[in-house]
Structures are given as structure tokens and as C-alpha cells.
């Protein structure tokens, strides 16, 4: 994926690294980066989604010479970027509904193709459909699956912040177990989101056999940019799911958005990998393995797990979930992913019934 870089102080872990040759620096390091999502948007302080969206869109714009059009599902990103009379987007962008971004993307991609065909143009603008986890894994699932089924030339990006943040932090099918949301309060015998529930949309996407599926986070910019760039080298349906921590929904200090995402990687909580035509092709290895508690303790949505009287088994269960990811995806150096990684909480389902 990335060229192995000789020791350069921070290697490719930082955005720029002046010691690297400019072509090896992140797109975000460039003074003339596209800034597809520009300043003045109304995202919360430290918004991971705003960051993830700019990273991804800029990378796609760079990969296509600016020939990108975006369809945005309803959600935070849409609301904070385009409240009348100001838009924060610098590229052709549209919003239709909550659950139809993938289908609108299909239509837009068809339009771009036919228009170019009619005009005799060889360059066809490419389409990105994007939304949050609610708009993707729940209400948008039908349209998403349909777009995958038809293998339409759309890159779908899910900015996964693991709950419905726009409406006030309610549970989605991407909400991890035990997490506090407004609809899974940390009360009662089983506080937080239920175990044995949830959807593993990257694996679902892979099961469609589409050309490219990847996960990424805002904590590894170079990896994210490489994946978006790679995605744009394919035609057909593609899916990238980017973990974008939400200070509001996760109960994070506004400054630790990126740190939280990094801990999600380093604990194995969020496996980062890519797959082509339904098969895992590469895995981003953990650099400095950490216990899941390091990830949990900076988030108020998990505060109930770390209180004095909390059930220690729950943290152990979360650790087991991470360990499962680490094993199945081969997240440690020197290990390989299994052929078919288990979907998130697959083992829990057997136990909760």
C-alpha cells in the first residue's frame, strides 16, 4: 500500500513530514489541497466527520483531477455543511434524503456517463455518495445494497460515528455494545447498547462481491488517502467506512477526536483493512497494541463500565471482542487474516439467545 519509508523522524505517521519528498506527503499536507469541505461549516468543535469528509473528498478530488460529484445523505455532515445561505463545499454536491444517497448516486453516475457520452467527452465525472452510519447501515441499507448489486460506478463513503448524532445520539446498527446512547441508556441490569446486535456493513459489502471495500479512520490519514485513491482507480461499486469519532456522541473532549480514533485502531476495536472482490487483501497492523480500557476511558459513553461498582465482565467482553478482531483480521505484525473474518459480535449472538 504505502511505500516503505526509511526512518524519517515521524515516517508517514504525521500529515506532512518535511523530510519526505513532497510526493510522499499526504494530500492534506499540500498548501494547495482542494479543501473540498472548507472553513465556515457549522460542525461541532473537534468534529471527526468534518475531518474525515475533507480527507476523503480531497483525496478523491486529487485522484480524479477534480472530477468528483457528491451525494450526501441527510445527517450531521449535510446539516452543518449546507445551511442556507452558505455552503462549505467547493465541488458539485447534492442532498436528497436520508436513506437514498446510494441510489441518487447511481442516478447521478448514470447521468454523468450519458452526458459525457452525448457530448463526446472522454472524461466522466465520478460520483461519491456519502452518509453517516445511520444513513448507511440502517435507513440507507436498501439503496446501498441495490447500488452494490448493480455495481454502479459509485464510491460510497460511510462516516461511521456509531450512532445517530444529528438527532441527538440514538442507537444505530453501528453502535457498539454497551455504549451509552439516548436510546440505550446506561441503566438497568444491562446498561448501554445490547450485546449480540449490530451490523458489520464492510463484510456485508464484501458479500456483494464489489470491487473494493475498505475501512479507515481519521487517525491514519495516509492510509485513508491511499484507500480513497485506490478506490478511485476501480470502476463499479466501492465502499469505504471511515471511523469518525464524535465528541458530542462519544463524550469526548473536543481535542481527542483523532486520538480516540487512533486508540480504536491500536486496541483492535476497529479493524482496518481492505478487500477486493470479496476477499481481504490487506490489513493495517496495530503499531502499539493497547488494552481496550485505554480506548474506553476517554469516552463518557463508556463511563458506566469503568465506575467502581461496574461489572468487570463487560470490559473483559469488549476486550474479547477486540481480541477476536485482532485474530480474525491478523492485526498484529506477523499474523495473517483468516479467510472469512467473523462479523462483529457473531459469537455474542450465540450467547445472548
Amino acid at each position, binding site marked *: 500500500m504505502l511505500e516503505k519509508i526509511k526512518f524519517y523522524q515521524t515516517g508517514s505517521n504525521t500529515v506532512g513530514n518535511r523530510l519526505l519528498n513532497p510526493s510522499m506527503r499526504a494530500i492534506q499536507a499540500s498548501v494547495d489541497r482542494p479543501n473540498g469541505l472548507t472553513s465556515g461549516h457549522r460542525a461541532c468543535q473537534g468534529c471527526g466527520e468534518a475531518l474525515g469528509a475533507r480527507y476523503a473528498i480531497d483525496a478523491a478530488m486529487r485522484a480524479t483531477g477534480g472530477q468528483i460529484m457528491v451525494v450526501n445523505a441527510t445527517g450531521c455532515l449535510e446539516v452543518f455543511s449546507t445551511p442556507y445561505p452558505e455552503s462549505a463545499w467547493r465541488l458539485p454536491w447534492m442532498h436528497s434524503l436520508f436513506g437514498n444517497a446510494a*441510489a441518487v448516486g447511481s442516478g447521478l453516475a448514470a447521468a454523468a456517463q450519458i452526458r459525457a457520452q452525448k457530448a463526446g467527452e472522454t472524461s466522466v465525472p465520478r460520483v461519491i455518495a456519502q452518509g453517516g452510519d445511520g444513513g448507511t447501515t440502517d435507513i440507507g441499507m436498501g439503496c446501498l445494497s441495490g447500488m452494490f448489486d448493480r455495481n454502479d460506478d459509485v464510491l460510497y463513503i460511510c462516516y461511521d460515528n456509531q450512532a445517530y448524532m444529528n438527532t441527538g445520539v440514538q442507537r444505530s446498527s453501528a453502535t457498539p455494545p454497551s455504549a451509552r446512547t439516548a436510546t440505550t441508556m446506561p441503566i438497568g441490569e444491562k446498561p448501554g447498547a445490547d450485546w449480540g446486535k449490530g451490523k458489520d456493513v464492510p463484510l456485508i459489502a464484501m458479500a456483494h462481491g464489489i470491487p473494493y471495500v475498505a475501512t479507515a479512520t481519521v487517525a491514519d490519514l495516509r492510509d485513508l488517502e491511499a484507500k480513497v485513491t485506490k478506490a478511485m482507480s476501480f470502476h463499479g461499486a466501492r465502499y469505504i467506512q471511515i471511523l469518525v469519532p464524535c465528541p458530542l456522541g462519544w463524550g469526548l473532549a473536543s481535542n481527542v477526536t483523532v486520538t480516540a480514533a487512533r486508540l480504536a485502531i491500536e486496541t483492535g476495536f476497529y479493524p482496518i483493512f481492505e478487500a477486493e472482490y470479496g476477499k481481504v487483501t490487506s490489513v493495517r497492523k496495530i503499531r502499539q497494541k493497547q488494552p481496550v480500557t485505554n480506548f474506553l476511558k476517554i469516552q463518557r459513553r463508556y463511563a458506566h463500565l469503568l465506575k467502581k461498582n461496574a461489572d468487570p465482565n463487560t470490559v473483559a467482553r469488549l476486550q474479547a471482542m477486540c481480541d477476536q478482531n485482532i485474530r480474525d483480521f491478523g492485526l498484529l505484525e506477523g499474523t495473517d487474516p483468516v479467510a472469512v473474518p467473523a462479523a462483529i459480535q457473531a459469537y455474542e449472538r450465540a450467547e445472548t439467545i
Partner: protein
Amino acid sequence: MSTEQIEGSLGVAKAVALCHPGVVCAYPISPQTHIVENLGKFVKGGALKNCDYLNVESEFAAISVSIGSSAGGLRTYTATASQGLLFMTEGIYNASGLGLPIVMTVASRAIGGPINIWNDHSDSLSQRDSGWLQLFCESNQDALDTHIMAFKIAETVGLPVMVCMDGFVLTHAFERLELPTQEQVDAFLPEYEPREYLTPKDPVSLGSMVGPEAFTEVRFLQQRKMAKAVHVIESVTEEYRKITGHHSGGLLDCYKCDDADIKLIIMGSTVGTAKDEVDRMRKAGIKVGIISLKAFRPFPYEALRKAIGDTKLVVCVERAFSFGGRGIICPEVKRAMEGTSCEVKTAIAGLGGRAIFGTTINGIVKAALDGKFKDEMTWFDIDSRVLNSYTKDGEGVTFPEGPLSDSQLKASVN
């Protein structure tokens, strides 16, 4: 101009193909399927060039793909009916809000439950307030021509158009149809020039969130487009008629209205059946006329008022109604006739595929002339035996043989 004996659906498909849409996208639902099947065949077989046909997974996706392709600057067509239309609803409102000139056939059909695949107008009229133009067709020739006009109207006004044709009754009927030539259509309908569309050449953000500070104004401007549409429908119809010689489209169409003592207001395929009956009644000396209401949205208040003139009795034959309310067309007609002494009534008939016969029309007219329309709304062609089989045992309520008036209905619950 070619004349063919073909199914209405095929006629519409050929008409749509003559308009050269860039994207056709639909999800199977009866009775709309034959239209898009034929279009799919045209695309696949190469007869319809520069067009993408997308098989989608739901009506929601169908309208969404259409929104995308229309926003992408292509002439876009889709079709649906009944539950499918309802499944689209969110996208229906969105498409009009975005001002996308999509043309969609609604092969009108009842809405379940109970599930019912047959024709009435409850699906299309449920979208009355969706911001789409709604044009009703009385025959397959009308439907064919209206689709061609619909693209021009939609693109001129900047709003989407629903072409409502009665499911099965029209879509599945084989009739003699005159198709305009490609040259005629090309002369009438130029290559689509989108008012605004998504392109990297001129990037805009389409579909912003508009708050209280401007939402009313957005709506006012949308309503203004509707007002403009009244004129556009008229002028486009005139132009189309001039080119083809067909007598289709328009805001409304009058049949033997000049000296009528009573006028029926009817939408859709019932108009043809009623025309035959009117001829028979006229022979019997009953002076009855028909106003075929073509445009339901925008509602042609002025044209209708003129068409009714000083007729004192008007009955709307309605194939849908508003639960807990009354007819849907009737109140609009009353608005048109406000300040006059014209009586406007509703006759409910033809729900869920119950056939409207000439005799049904005859019965309505006679009942009206006999002063039997005491209430605003009366249920015609209702089978009291079926009702009583349920209410008699359960509640001890029996209904006399139909028609049944609104007050009879109300009395039955006292």
C-alpha cells in the same frame, strides 16, 4: 405519424422513447410494468440510444435514482403505482422541492390494505400536495400525447410531472394509437437543457437546509411555478396540437357542455365511458355535459369556472376520497365556483377496480336530476348486501339498496 393497434403501455413507452430520456428507472409494480418493460427492451435492443435503464431494488430507489439523474442534467423518466408511489413519497416531495423536471407515469391503482391491485385514484391523489404537476389521461391516445407534453411542461416550469393513467383500464388496453414522428417530437421538444445541474464545471450545492428565515419564500416561489404551470400547460398543449393534430392534453376538456343542465366532472378513463352514456342520455333528452379534468395540479380554477359557466348542478365522479372528510375534487370545484349558486356534489364510484359502467353514469345523472343528492357526497354502485352481511349481525345495522348518502352513513353510527 404512424397508427398502431397496441397496448396503452407500449404506446406510452414509445412516446417516452421519442422524448429521448437519458435515464429510465423503475421497480416492478402492477399495472405500470408493461411501460418500463418496453422501455427496457428499447434500451437493451439499441433502439433507444444514450439512455441508461436501471433495475432498482425498490420504488424508493427508483425515485432516488431519478432524482440523481435529473440533478445530473438528464431527461429522466420513471413509472409506478399504488404502494410503489407511497414508497416513493419521501422522494416525490424531494424531487419537487429540488425543482427536478422528472416525468413519472402513475398507473393509478388503489392503495392497500386491504391489498388491491385494481384501478382507482387514491394513489395519485394521495400525492396532491407533493408539489408535482398531476395530469390525468382519459384515453391511451391522451396518455401517449400527455407524456410527450409532460416533458416540455416539466422542463419549462422546473417541476416534476405525474402523468396519471388508469391502471389496467388504460395501461392494459389495446387500442388504435397515433404516434407522432420523431421529427415532430424533436421539433416540439428540444434537447434537454437543464436549468441547473451538477457538474464540476460549475459546482453548486443542491438541496441545502433552509430554515425559518427563507422557507416560506421557497414555498411561495414553488407555488409561483405552479401558477406559471397553468399557462404553460395551455401553451404547450396548443403547440402540440398544432404539430400533431391530436386533441390531447390541456387543463380540461368539455364534452357537450354548451347547453347542459348538469355537468359531470370526471378524471381519467371513465370520461370515455361517460361520453357514450351522455350520447345515449342526450338522445333521451337529458341535457348533460362532461368536463374531463386533465390537470388536477395545478388545479385550473379559472378554466373550470368558465367551463361550468352558469350551470347550476355539477357532480364530481370521484374514484377516491378523503377519510373523515369527503371528496377530493369537489372542494376544489367549490372553490372555483365560490360566490355562485352552483351546487357541487361528489359521487363516489369505481373504487379498487369496481367498474364504472355507462349505467353507473346514467344513475348518477338521474339521481342528481331527481334531487337525490341531499348531501355533498354519495356512494354510488355500493352493494348493500355486502355491507349488511357484516353490519347486520355485528351491529344490527342494515343499509337500504344503494346509492348511500353521507347522512345515511352518519345515521348508521348514531
